[in-house]
């Protein structure tokens, strides 16, 4: 039972379309598990089921041994689930610092207090300062999120997710839209975080996947067609055929 995440027989249909078809996989503690597959294979759908935005038609999800299949999203978070979004999703009118503070505050609790001053919660702001100091975003702390560059937003998303101190982090295409430099920074950030939590990584950037993943699961048309370590997957003809093609990067 050292699986952080265990998914068994997860099935989700939209009308006649089966987006995830009897998917089973596990993520071990401290592991980065990559989920790859062609567009429309059902990766985001799977992530959304794990975090509770979609309800599966069948199957089970266990987080650290607890059945969370029917729990509302907020309770899953309390049990240690964090995520980033495929399309960045932040609080656009607030600054980087405020975004982080809210994330920390959400974790710390005491959120029904109406007579305190959020600005005076030292435990929150100290932690935010710490996080920022350790991150490349430090100098941008006072910038409003709407004015951030794309890569910076992605970085911030990651920081916010990590500040929840999750056991398992769901990452939906963290490299999307990033240039080489930014991708490399993101990879470094993820590698640095890998000690703290397990990750389920959805990504199309194969360089990143192969640099990061301990194990890879390949999803095609909602089904798992292969699973294994990076080399096995790279060598798998079915995967090459359905997904990798003749890489010419």
């Amino acid at each position, binding site marked *: 039972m050292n699986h952080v995440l265990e998914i068994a027989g997860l099935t989700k249909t939209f009308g006649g379309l089966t987006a995830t078809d009897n998917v089973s996989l596990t993520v071990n503690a401290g592991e980065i598990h990559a989920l790859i597959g*062609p*567009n429309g294979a059902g990766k*985001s759908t799977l992530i959304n089921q794990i975090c509770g935005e979609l309800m599966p038609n069948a199957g089970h999800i266990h987080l650290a041994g607890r059945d969370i299949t029917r729990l509302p999203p907020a309770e899953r978070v309390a049990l240690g689930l964090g995520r980033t979004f495929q399309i960045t999703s932040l609080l656009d009118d607030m600054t980087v610092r405020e975004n982080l503070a809210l994330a920390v505050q959400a974790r710390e609790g005491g959120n029904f207090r109406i007579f305190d001053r959020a600005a005076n919660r030292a435990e929150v702001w100290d932690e935010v300062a710490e996080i920022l100091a350790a991150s490349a975003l430090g100098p941008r702390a006072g910038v409003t999120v709407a004015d951030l560059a794309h890569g910076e937003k992605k970085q911030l998303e990651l920081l916010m997710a990590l500040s929840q101190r999750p056991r398992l982090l769901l990452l939906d295409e963290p490299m*999307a839209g990033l240039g*080489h*430099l*930014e991708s490399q920074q993101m990879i470094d950030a993820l590698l640095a975080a890998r000690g703290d939590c397990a990750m389920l990584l959805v990504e199309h950037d194969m360089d990143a996947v192969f640099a990061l993943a301990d194990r890879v699961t390949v999803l095609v048309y909602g089904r798992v067609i292969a699973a294994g370590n990076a080399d096995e997957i790279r060598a798998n003809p079915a995967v090459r055929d359905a*997904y*990798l093609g003749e890489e010419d990067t």
Partner: protein
Amino acid sequence: MLSVQNLQAGYGASQVLFDISLDIKDGEVVTLMGRNGMGKTTTVRTIMGLLPPKGGAVQYDGRAIGGLAPEKVARLGFGLVPEGRQVFPTLTVRENLVATAANRLAAKSPWTLARIYELFPRLGERGGQMAATLSGGEQQMLAVGRALMTNPRLLILDEATEGLAPVIRSEIWQVVEKLKAEGQSILLIDKTFSVLKRLADRHFILEKGKTVWTGTSAELTRDQARVQAWVGI
């Protein structure tokens, strides 16, 4: 066909483009390269009339088109595949393709629904589905198809392969190659340096809102070291 001189633009008070110059000839494939946030998308938006230029000139066949309304620019023969796809979520795939379809420049073999479905079979399978429920990659194909259906003289692809599976990515590159072979002019923005170098005739590199380097693919190879610093490899 298109020439941009010393273009300046920005969002509200903040200026993003300071000095952009580029030009595209008929049948040419050119690229715009640069790290994140250097102003590639902003350049495209300004050319398309989605942002008002603050200075400089945009000329199309010798005619100044800077500051024209976007629909007028588009009608001149610009087909945009925008960053972030921006398909119409409440329309079906088919409707997305036909709603704005046109053949204003009377292309001899215009794009049709059938030809698009042939190019992207996945879209054919999803023809009746709302675009909002497509996967990211499917939406990207739709955005390309939608732009092609306006039969543009200049096709602008802003990060058209973002978020696509490697197979699809190569498919798109094949499509671009095919289009190029047919004589389609294309303005390409992408991250995949090696492909761009192979596909395109000429390149423009942006750094902080300025064009800092211009040249052919051959020159690019020669200047690789400097260029890679700008592009961030």
